[in-house]
């Protein structure tokens, strides 16, 4: 599965992109797995309320399924306009 990180999440994790093998069922499960990868990941994902997720480029809730997804992205609330 391809993972994408943006804005301060990208900065805290130290990369905008990584590939992982996962059996996580939901976005929340995937975050729990990622937090165990490194201190940087744990720090980046420490406040779940400040994080939004997209599965295959569609904004989703934390309980959304990720099985079969090609790309999952994590980022702070968006500030367009």
């Amino acid at each position, binding site marked *: 599965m391809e993972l*994408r990180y*943006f*804005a*301060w999440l*990208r900065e805290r994790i130290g990369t905008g992109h990584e590939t992982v093998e996962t059996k996580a069922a939901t976005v929340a499960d995937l975050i729990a797995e990622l937090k165990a990868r490194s201190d940087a990941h744990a720090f980046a994902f420490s406040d779940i309320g400040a994080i939004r997720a*997209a599965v295959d*480029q*569609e*904004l989703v809730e934390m309980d959304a399924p990720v099985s079969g997804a090609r790309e999952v*992205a994590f*980022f*702070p*609330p*968006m*500030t*367009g*306009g």
Partner: protein
Amino acid sequence: MDIRVQDAAFDMGAELNRFAAQVDGAGAVVSFSGIVRDVEGGDLHAMEIEHYPGMTERALNDIATQAMQRWQLTDALIIHRHGRLMPGAPIMMVATAARHRADAFAAAEFLMDYLKSRAPFWKKEITATGDDWVAARDADEQALTRWQAPAPTPD
């Protein structure tokens, strides 16, 4: 419908003239432009705008399609820049065209409200004292609730 995500600068006057010249059957054109606002104290060096290539275009297309369907629009335009922008530079613009102004105004506000918190852009302010990600405002999230359909009234 014309959706553009680009790092290049654009001329809002020229874009608006071009848009207004080719609307078909419309009697009203409304536009909004966002520009890079200086921080208090005036020491903003630049604003950096990051985005999610691919998802950005999809989200903007989706938002514009919703606006076209919800109001009687004849056309809609969204231009949004990314990359490093100087204070005072145009960041983005939307324009809507409709037979009557009420639809054009409402659709432009709808586009802006959704763009603010549903299009994957992130702004960072570069100042003399450091860099800061711009935090999302609760008011922007709140603004979306007015566009959600009211609950059906019982007969």
